[in-house]
């Protein structure tokens, strides 16, 4: 059948199984929006308040569902407003297709109204991008964009379509959903080397990251853990893959990691990294990272091997394949001494936690998360913004299933949360809980309008300490308490603000009320914002100081010292 470029965009999206797209119309995508309007019974479009929110929503949607997130924006400012969202998806390896309109090809390069070289702008923050000059290339480019976005290490792909290409007509034949490209398989020799190291080790630490998460490898990882009697820790991006109650799971390790996990990581004689990139936030000073341990790294991305730290054995290729081959060949072995050491670390961890709770300056965030854990369901997605609240969420939220923690890890994007939570709630159809702070929320709170308009099931827990908490913490500890521009003397009334947007707004400063308000919101419809007042001097602990290693871990700070 003969279709216009705009119809091809819509038909390709539908063909690729896309049911929901996020975006914002504008001059150079009017035709695409017209095609979307006509296909409204087959594809759903969510209008956000800002293109950045749309990009984060597509990202959150992709993380929560495992599908490819799609965002559409117009040329110029529409396209540049996507940039942070695309970069965020790139750093966290999220499958996303961004579609932008551009000025007609005869106006390209003339600094025309709302013209921007968005393929140039997004070159370093996309897996790949396309500027489609010929209508006959449109459908193949879009299909390839989906394929690239979800294959190998997932990531964002941008397709820029000039207006005349949207108007041009060509023959279109629908095709099926493009499959993921086949992965290479790790070499047998590498599997043998890995198995040998595992068989010989005494204290194995399985270290899972976002790569294992996006391949939903919880069961595979647990099977290995049980066979070798090891423990499991995660990177920030690996959180929620393994359920928090799983006995051998120690939680996140790294800068603000769980104590037992970080210490076990240090004490281990073998690290088995699965889909982790040993980021600087996870390793601290790489010169001192796991010096006593051998390291095995499983990754689909060859470029991650020996990038941040040097490893002893690397298995490059499909993670599931690599892990299952190791699992089959490795000896079943009990390692009671290691397990005993881990139990000791867990005991130390609970003592440290008690001490930190004792040092609390008011309502300790842990109690907020205790209530959240009690009243959320196994299927509830917890999304966050960026800062102290994010780290508390990482430390204290209990997860029962994979893909339930959605947070900006690599880019650390304040303002990510609102869009991401909306995307997650729309993708899963379940109530999503957003943990945010007064700083981060201020960045994209306009998306409250979106959440209310679409009656998105969303509970926003806003931890308000009146400061940019993480910046404040660093200024307190490392900058002589000179709180340069981190004190938010804004006098914003978040309850009234929520109400002004048409959401429900409530406020509390204690755990008891919070629990009541939170449990009510979980049973209600639509959007509720719960503002929780906490103290500005509450710190995220433990922490590794900048440039430090695990030997420099700060586990607690007496009340009188801060």
């Amino acid at each position, binding site marked *: 059948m003969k279709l216009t470029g705009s119809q091809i965009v819509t038909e390709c999206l539908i063909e690729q199984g896309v049911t929901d797209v996020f975006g914002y119309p504008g001059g150079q995508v009017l035709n695409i929006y017209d095609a979307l309007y006509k296909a409204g019974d087959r594809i759903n479009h969510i209008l956000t308040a800002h293109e950045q929110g749309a990009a984060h929503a597509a990202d959150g949607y992709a993380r929560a569902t495992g599908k490819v997130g799609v965002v559409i924006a117009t040329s110029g400012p529409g396209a540049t407003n996507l940039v942070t969202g695309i970069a965020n998806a790139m750093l966290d390896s999220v499958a996303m297709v961004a579609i932008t309109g551009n000025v007609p090809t005869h106006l390209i390069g003339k600094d025309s109204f709302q013209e921007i070289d968005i393929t140039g702008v997004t*070159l*370093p923050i996309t*897996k*790949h991008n396309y*500027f489609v000059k010929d209508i006959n290339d449109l459908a193949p480019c879009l299909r390839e964009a989906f394929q690239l976005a979800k294959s190998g290490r997932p990531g964002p792909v941008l397709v820029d379509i000039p207006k005349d290409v949207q108007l041009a007509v060509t023959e279109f034949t629908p095709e099926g959903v493009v499959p993921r490209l086949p992965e290479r398989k790790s070499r047998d020799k590498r599997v043998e080397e890995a198995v040998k190291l595992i068989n010989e080790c005494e204290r194995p630490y399985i270290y899972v990251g976002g790569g294992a998460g996006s391949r939903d490898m919880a069961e595979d990882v647990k099977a290995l853990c049980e066979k070798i009697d090891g423990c499991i820790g995660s990177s920030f991006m690996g959180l929620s893959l393994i359920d928090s109650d799983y006995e051998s799971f120690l939680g996140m390790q790294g800068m603000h990691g769980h104590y037992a996990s970080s210490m076990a990581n240090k004490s281990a004689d073998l690290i088995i990294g699965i889909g982790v990139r040993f980021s600087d936030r996870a390793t601290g000073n790489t010169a001192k990272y796991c010096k006593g341990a051998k390291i095995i790294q499983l990754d689909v991305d*060859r*470029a991650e091997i*020996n990038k941040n730290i040097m490893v002893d054995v690397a298995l490059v290729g499909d993670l599931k394949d690599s892990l299952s081959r190791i699992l089959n060949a490795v000896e079943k072995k009990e390692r009671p001494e290691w397990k005993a050491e881990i139990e000791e670390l867990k005991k130390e961890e609970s003592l440290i936690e008690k001490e930190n709770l004792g040092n609390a300056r008011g309502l300790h965030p842990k109690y907020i998360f205790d209530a959240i854990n009690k009243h959320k369901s196994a299927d509830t997605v917890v999304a966050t913004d960026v800062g102290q609240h994010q780290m508390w969420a990482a430390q204290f939220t209990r997860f029962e299933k994979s893909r339930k923690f959605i947070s900006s890890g690599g880019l650390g994007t304040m303002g990510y949360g609102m869009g991401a939570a909306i995307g997650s709630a729309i993708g899963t159809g379940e109530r999503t809980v957003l943990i945010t702070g007064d700083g981060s929320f201020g960045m994209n709170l306009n998306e409250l309008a979106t959440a209310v308009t679409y009656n998105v099931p969303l509970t926003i827990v806003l931890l308000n300490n009146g400061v940019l908490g993480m910046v404040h913490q660093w200024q307190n500890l490392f900058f002589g308490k000179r709180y340069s521009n981190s004190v938010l003397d804004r006098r914003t009334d978040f309850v009234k603000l929520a109400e002004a947007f048409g959401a429900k707004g409530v406020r509390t400063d204690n755990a008891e009320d919070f629990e009541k308000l939170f449990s009510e919101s979980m049973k209600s419809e639509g959007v509720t914002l719960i503002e929780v007042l906490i103290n500005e001097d509450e710190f995220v602990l433990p922490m590794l100081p900048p440039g430090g290693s695990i030997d420099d871990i700060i586990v607690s700070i007496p009340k009188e010292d801060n």
Partner: protein
Amino acid sequence: MSRRYVIAVYVDNKPGVLTRVSSMFTRRAFNIDTLTVGEIENPAYSRITISLSGDEYTKNQIVAQLNKLHNVQKVKVLADESAIRRELMIIKMKNNPHNRAEIMAAAEVYKGKIIDYSVETISVEVTGEPVKIDAFIELMKPLGILEMCRTGIVAIERGSETMFSQEI
């Protein structure tokens, strides 16, 4: 330990591909000494030849990151001992009775060609290993260089070894 590497890259012969490759180098803070691009026997591809100085870590990262680019089809680090490397230079010198003979003698020894001769200038073309070009430039420096340009390195391996003869 830093050493010189020559990396040959087969890329799709499409607009913007060179930008993608060079942008990756900028973004990852890898330094390039020379970069040349040209079509090959198959018009679907171009060959980019990159020479750089760096340690083994950098070289390995560059290869891995190049391989991630969608338009890159093949990357090969040319073995130092078997790579034939060539560079072409054109250099424009002042022409006067004091330096004329020396320029022409040097050009002859270096198997260069006088490609232009005017009352005030002599232009010489020299081809060869980059070290040979460097040496020729050293000879010319005291004689008054007016202008010069170098193509950067192109390289190919000796014998039956080709871009696709073995997996890397």
